[in-house]
């Protein structure tokens, strides 16, 4: 396309979408094809749309999204591995009128941080947990995660996850849905435009619940891909996710307004 044609197109009248100012201009550290960038963006868009970003404190985990604070343009704390819900508890208890959320991966939330996750949920901490589940430890180079599927290969299950030796994938989202302290639980994806819209609505609902009810924890799982860790192209990884991850981790609402809706 010729340059003068491009400059004709790029003008205010044609603007249909722009990056939220709640995403910084720092270059994302995620691999091309990864879902984290989209999950970050829709979370920040929700905070912008709800107008609560000035009163928001977010917690970054350890894992691929350890640097989430480089990209999310709100006050952020970085937690030790798995401890984000404990930090969030400390913050929210001291600042009950602030909006508090954690953003965690599967290793962080469902392995090393299981106790912090379960107990923050059980106490009904009035926070939002955004849980990105890609079934692998991405940052450390593709090791087996608590949510790695049976038979799935990783650098620490090179012949596939043998559930008799390594245990079964942990459905922690279904687990926390059972706890009375949890108001809402939903499982979403961000690999298609339709799923992005649904996931954003779910995140918005979770934050709205935090603002409205002042008690109860709201939990959003996003099943995502890790094309690098899974050793696939981005396109193939999304197809593989649909065919393998979604049957094990089915999408949709699990708990709404304190009632389990989908077992």
């Amino acid at each position: 396309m010729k340059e003068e044609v491009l400059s004709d197109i790029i003008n205010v009248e044609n603007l249909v979408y722009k990056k939220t100012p709640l995403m910084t201009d720092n270059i994302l550290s995620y691999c091309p094809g990864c879902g984290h960038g989209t999950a970050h963006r829709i979370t920040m868009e929700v905070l912008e749309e709800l107008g609560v970003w000035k009163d928001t404190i977010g917690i970054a985990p350890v894992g691929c999204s350890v640097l989430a604070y480089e990209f999310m343009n709100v006050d952020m704390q970085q937690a030790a591995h798995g401890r984000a819900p404990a930090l969030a508890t400390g913050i929210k208890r001291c600042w009950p009128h602030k909006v508090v959320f954690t953003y965690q991966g599967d290793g962080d939330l469902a392995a090393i941080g299981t106790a912090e996750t379960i107990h923050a949920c059980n106490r009904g901490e009035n926070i939002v947990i955004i849980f990105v589940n890609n079934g692998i430890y991405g940052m450390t180079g593709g090791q087996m995660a608590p949510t790695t599927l049976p038979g799935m290969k990783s650098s620490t299950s090179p012949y596939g996850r043998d559930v008799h030796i390594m245990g079964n994938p942990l459905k922690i989202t279904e687990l926390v849905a059972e706890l009375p302290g949890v108001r809402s639980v939903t499982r979403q994806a961000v690999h298609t435009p339709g799923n992005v819209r649904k996931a954003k609505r779910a995140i918005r609902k979770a934050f709205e619940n935090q603002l409205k009810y002042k008690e109860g924890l709201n939990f959003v799982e996003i099943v995502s891909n890790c094309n690098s860790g899974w050793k696939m192209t981005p396109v193939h990884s999304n197809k593989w996710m649909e065919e393998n991850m979604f049957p094990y981790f089915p999408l949709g609402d699990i708990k709404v307004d304190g009632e389990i809706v989908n077992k």
Partner: protein
Amino acid sequence: MGELKLMKGNEAIAEAAIRAGVDAYFGYPITPQSEVIEYLMAEKPYETTGMVVLQAESEVAAINMVYGAAGTGKKAMTSSSSPGISLKQEGISYMAGAELPCVIVNVVRGGPGLGTIQPSQADYFQAVKGGGHGDYHMIVLAPASVQEMADFVTKGFDLAFKYRTPVMILSDGLIGQMMEKVIMPEHTPRWTDEEIIEKWPWATTGKPGSRERNIITSLDLDSGRQEQHNIHLQKKYKEIHENEIEFEEFMCDDADYLFVAYGSSARIAQKAIKLGREKGIKAGLLRPITLYPFPAEAIHRLAKQVKGILSLELSAGQMVEDIRLSVGCDIKVEHFGRMGGIIHSPAEALQALEDKIIGG
């Protein structure tokens, strides 16, 4: 004027925390310090001062709740005893790295491992040398009375916020469990949210349009910047050394021999000195009040005056290493201490001075 009370050391910590305007206490039960959270839960300060009190699911969670609260500029504290303090080391290291102020109370019991529930001073190395991973220190205060248990809460938070660093009150099962008279301070109101935002511009209190976002982190993947951060921390520790060393001398003026002891051992040493003086043995006591920073110069000065030094600790001999590094001259420096929860008597301490220093 303060209020005179008869209290356990652990209760004094709790009451002093309420009166000091502490914002949050996060704890987990462990003997011999459970009275701290029990007292707080019974007093319900959340209904009076607005102080948060929460029993966490673990010591790990408790210290990380402190991290979160401290990162928002609140006065947050936790307490535990030795095995629980080991679990908190991860959080303490992160807080030192992220430069977060807090107070951590260790009511030390005998170890290693699950050890005993009786008093000990065997966590000295862990407290003063770092404890967790990485190049860091925290300020370590050693109370020798119930009064100091109370006083060091306010003092601890003053130091913690002055230097943006974790502060440990290194007590033991004896000071924690014994009852003494204590004058409780007047109530200091908690900082308002507005005061916190004004006082601590680094705190993550929500980003207004007028400033960049605040980030609390100990991570920097750029090793050049991480080294600069470490240099900054070391500079801070040097400043702490220059400004914050505290100690107390007891009968040192004419002393031929010196006990160095902190906390409950300092109380025992005082009695041993009195027994010794009845027999014509002129001993004195140097009691470090700050264990980090360590009163090395005071020991160096007294080492020139006395013929020998006995380090009296409820351990196999930990502080004695720092004393040896401090003396700088050729005098005898030995250790005496019972272990595993046994408390040495004043007579035993005096006998050890006679055997190891005077006669040795």
